[in-house]
C-alpha cells in the first residue's frame, strides 16, 4: 500500500463529521464503493437499454468533470490550463489519487482539442470484466468534459479498447465534435 500517497490524501481530505461532509481541497466529496458504477449500468440497462444507460452515464461523467477540474486547479494551480506537460502530469497523478485506477496520457494536443490516453482498473471495468462492449462511460465523460473545459471546444470521447471486454487496457480517443 502507498504510505506516502495515503499521507498526502489524508492531509487533503477534511472531514466534518458533525455535518456528514468530506472535503478534498475544499470541494465536497463522497466516498463510494466502486461497484456502484457497475450497479448503475445494470439497473439503467433494465430501464432504458444499453444505449440509454451508456449515454446517461457519459453525460453524468461530463457533468462531473467540472467539480473534478476544480480540485485539479486547487492542487496544481490555474496554469494547468496552459501546458500539455502539466496536464499529463496532473492527470496521471490525480486519477490514481482518487482511486479511479491508472492512467497514461499517450497524446495530448490542446490546439486540436485532442487526447489519447489509456488506463487500467477503472471503476466501471468492475469485478467480472465480462461485457461484450465498452464499460467506462463515466470515465469517458469525465475526460471528455476535461478537454472541453481545457479547450473551450465541444468534444466527443470514444473508448476504443476496454478491459471489461477482455482488452489488456482501456483506451480512449477524444476529439472535437
Amino acid at each position, binding site marked *: 500500500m502507498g504510505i506516502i500517497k495515503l499521507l498526502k490524501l489524508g492531509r487533503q481530505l477534511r472531514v466534518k463529521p458533525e455535518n456528514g461532509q468530506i472535503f478534498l481541497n475544499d470541494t465536497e466529496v463522497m466516498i463510494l464503493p466502486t461497484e456502484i458504477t457497475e450497479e448503475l449500468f445494470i439497473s439503467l440497462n433494465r430501464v432504458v437499454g444499453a444505449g440509454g444507460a451508456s449515454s446517461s452515464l457519459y453525460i453524468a461523467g461530463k457533468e462531473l468533470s467540472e467539480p473534478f477540474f476544480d480540485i485539479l486547479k486547487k492542487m496544481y494551480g490555474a496554469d494547468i490550463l496552459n501546458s500539455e506537460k502539466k496536464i499529463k502530469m496532473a492527470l496521471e497523478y490525480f486519477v490514481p489519487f*482518487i482511486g479511479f485506477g491508472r492512467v497514461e496520457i499517450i497524446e495530448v494536443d490542446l490546439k486540436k482539442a485532442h487526447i489519447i490516453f489509456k488506463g487500467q482498473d477503472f471503476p466501471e471495468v468492475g469485478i467480472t470484466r465480462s461485457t461484450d462492449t465498452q464499460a467506462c462511460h463515466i470515465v469517458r465523460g469525465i475526460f471528455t468534459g476535461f478537454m472541453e473545459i481545457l479547450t473551450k471546444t465541444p468534444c466527443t470521447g470514444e473508448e476504443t479498447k476496454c478491459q471489461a471486454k477482455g482488452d489488456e487496457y482501456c483506451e480512449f480517443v477524444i476529439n472535437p465534435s
Partner: protein
Amino acid sequence: MTRLLKVDSKNGQMFIEGRRVMIIPVEFSSALNKGLAKVVGKGAASALYNQGKEIGNSIFDLFIRIKGIEVKYSEDDYKRAIEDFLPLGGFGRMELTELDFKSGEVVLRGWNFPEVISIGHSEEPVCHLMRGISTRFTELVLQRPLVGKEVKCQAKGDEYCEILINSGDE
C-alpha cells in the same frame, strides 16, 4: 471512514475493509440526474430513486464489513447505519426520528444531502438518490419491500429533508 482508507498507489486503487472505493464529488447525484433526464425525461426522479436503492446494497455491505455485525440486524444497528455510518461517507447528516420495526414505518431527517448541496434551490424535493439509499438500508434491516418518500427538502427551503419510509405506495 477516511482513517480506514488503504491506498494501493501502484494500481490507483483504494480500499476500506477490502472493498474498493473511490472519491467522487457530491455533484455525482445531480450529474446522474442530468444524464438520466436527457434519456428518460420526467422519469429521471424515479429512475434515480431506484438507482439509490441499487447502490444502497453495496454501501450497506460496506457498513456491515466495517462494523462486523451479523446478518440479523437490531434497531441499534439500523440507527448506527443511518446516523453514524452514512455521514462518514460524506452523505450528509441523518437523524432517525421515528422507527417502528413491526409496521416498517420510519421517519428520517437529513441535512446537507449531496443533492441539496449540488442542486441548490428547487421547487420539488431533490434527494432521490439519498431517498433510495436510505430506503434500501431500511429494507435490508427490516427484510421487507418498502417505499421512501421525501416530504421535506432543504432544496425547497425546508429546514431539513424528511424521508418517510413505509410499505405504502410510492
